[in-house]
């Protein structure tokens, strides 16, 4: 184990292809601090339309931090400070004119641990649309709930017990409920922070299949610790290391032919 973190060249550029044409989200030179401690250094990365980008890297390297910048979830942490240029469809995410509430309706998030509200399955899914007034009447809402649950692959399992509490579902079902809840708002981008880490292989497979389907309509950024998972679901992969984006490239290329030594070390299991 040569787990000794190598000193990184501060001026080092990200290796590979962080930038793409016509990005959905683009970030340039992003620095993030928690108080005095810098967690992200000069990170630049684009996310395209209808693509799944996987973020991999050792624990504590800043994947979640970077992900949470994209929908300003970091705003809820008092000590967190974000600098740099982050754009969604060319609009500055951290601009004053950007309302975080609207932003989060456009950029949805699925968390590591399934976190359904202690309400009924129906109300879990209906909560977001209700917040934003997306349904004009009950029938509308029923429709939104049904399509969201269908797309999350949960409808058949819960259609007879929509009034049952969401917390009473199994872990995998809860996570799919959370995904349904996120897509019910009709976001453009979905951020997923280790969505399958608390699930068994079968539930994981269902979620992965789901991600693949969702790609048709959304841009997805997924943090994962499973390289197989990254390989299975993503088109591009970014390797994070100690707050820096070391390498970005096509998923296949990253896993078969990494260009940076650190990426290779991580993928081959030399550390991480």
């Amino acid at each position, binding site marked *: 184990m040569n787990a000794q973190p190598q000193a990184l060249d501060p001026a080092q550029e990200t290796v590979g292809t962080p930038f793409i044409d016509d990005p959905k989200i683009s970030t340039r030179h992003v620095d993030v601090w928690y108080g005095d401690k810098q967690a992200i250094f000069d990170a630049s990365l684009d996310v395209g339309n209808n693509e799944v980008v996987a973020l991999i890297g050792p624990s504590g390297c800043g994947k979640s931090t970077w992900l949470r910048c994209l929908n300003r979830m970091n705003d*809820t942490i*008092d000590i967190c400070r974000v600098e740099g240029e982050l754009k969604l469809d060319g609009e500055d995410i951290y601009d004053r004119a950007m309302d975080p*509430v609207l932003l989060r309706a456009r950029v949805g998030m699925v968390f590591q641990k399934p*976190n*359904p509200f202690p309400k009924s399955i129906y109300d879990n899914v209906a909560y977001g649309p209700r*917040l934003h007034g997306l349904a004009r009447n009950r029938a509308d809402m029923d429709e939104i709930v049904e399509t969201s649950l269908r797309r999350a692959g949960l409808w058949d399992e819960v259609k007879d017990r929509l009034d049952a509490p969401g917390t009473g579902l199994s872990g995998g079902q809860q996570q799919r409920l*959370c995904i349904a809840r996120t897509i019910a*708002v009709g976001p453009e981008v979905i951020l997923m922070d280790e969505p399958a880490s608390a699930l068994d292989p079968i539930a994981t497979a269902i979620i992965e299949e789901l991600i693949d389907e969702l790609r048709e309509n959304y841009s997805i950024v997924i943090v994962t610790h499973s390289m197989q998972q990254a390989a299975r679901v993503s088109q591009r992969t970014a390797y994070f290391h100690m707050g820096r984006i070391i390498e970005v490239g096509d998923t296949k290329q990253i896993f078969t032919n990494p260009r940076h030594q650190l990426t290779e070390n991580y993928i081959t299991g030399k550390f991480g």
Partner: protein
Amino acid sequence: MNNTDIVRQSLKRRYRKERRFRAYGMIAVATGFLFLGFLLTDIVTKALPAFSLTELRLDIPMDRESLGLAEDAEISEDTLRALPYSQIIKKSLRSLFPDIRKRKQKKLLYKLISSGAEFDLRDRLVAHPEWIDGPPQSLWLTADDDVDTWYKLDTQVSRIKPLQAELIQALETQDRIRTAFNTHFFTRSDSREPEMAGIRGALAGSFWTLLVTFVITLPIGVAAALYLEEFAPQNRLTDFIEVNINNLAAVPSIVFGLLGLAIFINFFGMPRSAPLVGGLVLTLMTLPTIIISARAAIKSIPPSIKEAAYGLGASKMQVVFHHVLPLSMPGILTGSIIGMAQALGETAPLLMIGMVAFIVEIPEGVLDSATVLPVQIYLWSDSPERAFSALTAATILVLLGFLATMNALAIFLRKHFERRW
């Protein structure tokens, strides 16, 4: 000697230590229960006599002449209220014992009946105006507390004269004396006569006082807790506030009483002895408790729920009012009930603001003069009549009953709504 043996030896010692420790614990618990048992037995045995009253059966003639009602007088509530009931009762007593002629003996005879019995008789006649002009009514009227004590408990009590004892025995042979359930205890207010005294006034006073406390503390407490937990920036000022809330919870309650006296009564000129002021003083006292418990309840809500709501685009207010508040409500209510229970048992600060007066009227609002249950206990425990000590114990029992119910409710709420995420 190998390692296993060493471990085995030390194990023995460790187990012995454990057994000893468990024994200590059991002794401690047993001691606690023993004291509680003593206390409860003592209170219950002392309180039991208060729940029954001795009554005498008197035949009250219902003709107008005996009642002192003019032939042509119309029967209305006013006229009925104004009848000379004391005379009527005395006359009826005399008719039972025609042999008693001497003034002194008559006086002793009259003393068998409670001086409050006339009010009972009046109330019954007002309720039954159709009795007038009818046959004599045989009515049970409350006996004097000395008779009560003598008849129920203790024939050695010297306050009953030999003649009176004879009279009571005569009444017994005529089936004219009995003990019945003491309704006065629950329907009447304080009185100089123990057999006419009840806790209704104190109960009403406690109710109004706690109502004021609850209505003011809950919103202020919840708002303060929500602000401190969810909105306030983490800085020196909030730390300072937090420390001082905890300090406030430890301030002796009498200090709040003095504060209330100075501010609410002397400065704002609010009425003395009023539940409004009592409630305000108790608010000062319970507020820290409620803020602390509400903050704990709010803190216990998993951040993942809040994150989920934020992630869907809920604003801070929406997160607080859709999720944080509803989910922490059971905990907040539990804390409030416990705070209310404390307030219910509080005596000292209320003494300071004059809720210790002798009040016969049942308070009908937050501005009427009133006293509260624990103060009533304090007042009666001071009275010399033996019957009052039974009333004191009975009131303690009632107060303990309320406290136990409130605490049970709090435990129920906590158990019932306890969530695991």
